[in-house]
């Protein structure tokens, strides 16, 4: 529910909801633009970190929002809409991996370069390489948990696993990443307090 008490819906009137008692107001272009501005950057970063391919990230970002507009999810607030978009993006990224469209080594070599900051480029390259060594599911879990701050239930919904399994898979993913970081000498000093 938005501040003015309307439920956000997407532009194409869903057949399933036409018989419902509460009249729904579809999301108009202005609302979509506002939501897109708030969300698209994070989604792009997520997809890019998952695939390591900027072109794929552009493509999947557009597909994500196309699906979002077509699906017309009946969701009460922006946080839930955001979660819905992350879930859609996750599904598309997993499909992308399944279809074998990626060429991670090539993609990482072709990362957009920070021409004037070679040391940053090297750091990014190392970080992307480490992250690429994780399984796609591990990458998704770590990103959603640590960067997006999603709850276990939200992660379970986005990744398509049981909520109870998230804790275990997340623990294994952290362990895997920590081992990789230690092995490659990239482990940062943990923050305390």
């Amino acid at each position, binding site marked *: 529910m938005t501040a003015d008490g309307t439920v956000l819906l997407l532009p194409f009137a869903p057949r399933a909801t036409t018989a419902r008692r509460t009249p729904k107001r579809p999301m108009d272009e202005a609302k979509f633009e506002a939501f897109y501005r708030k969300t698209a*950057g994070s989604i792009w970063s997520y997809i890019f970190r998952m695939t390591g391919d900027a072109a794929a990230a552009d493509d999947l970002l557009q597909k994500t929002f196309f699906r979002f507009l*077509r699906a017309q999810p009946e969701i009460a607030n922006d946080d839930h809409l955001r979660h819905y978009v992350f879930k859609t993006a996750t599904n598309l990224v997993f499909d992308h991996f399944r279809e074998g469209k990626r060429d991670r080594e090539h993609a990482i070599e072709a990362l957009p370069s920070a021409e004037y900051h070679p040391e940053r480029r090297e*750091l990014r390259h190392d970080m992307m390489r480490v992250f690429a060594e994780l399984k796609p599911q591990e990458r998704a879990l*770590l990103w959603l948990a640590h960067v997006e701050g999603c709850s276990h239930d939200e992660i379970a919904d986005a990744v398509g696993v049981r909520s109870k399994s998230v804790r275990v898979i997340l623990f294994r993913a952290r362990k895997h*990443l920590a081992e990789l970081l230690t092995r490659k000498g990239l482990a*940062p000093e*943990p923050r305390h307090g």
Partner: protein
Amino acid sequence: MADIERDPMEAQVDAWMQQFARLDDRPRSLPDASTLWVRATLLQSVVTAERANRPITNAQIGAYLVVAAGWAALLMWKWNALATWLRGFTPTHIILGAAGAEAATSLSLTFVLILIVLASVTVMLAFHTILAEE
């Protein structure tokens, strides 16, 4: 999020993930929202149009099959007569026919009528296909 209660591994991973997330690697501007909106609207129109056209397309496919089956049945039914008639197109047979040496093979009126109807339907179907595509 209370870092104090976290185990060192989790804190280490969290620190690394935060650093990783802060990397600015977006090379160019993202696709424009209004462009996406318009494209999604167009895409939806195309999907709706395809859905609306589906019965017509199915009927068209059915018509192709009926016409093809009609031609096949006709050819099988009168194949011998047709073969004789076609053989009559050789120069020898034309000359013999003109001299009255060979009796003309006659095809029944029903057959000729069916042939005309089938040919007309085929032509109409072809026109419909061409016009529909245009």
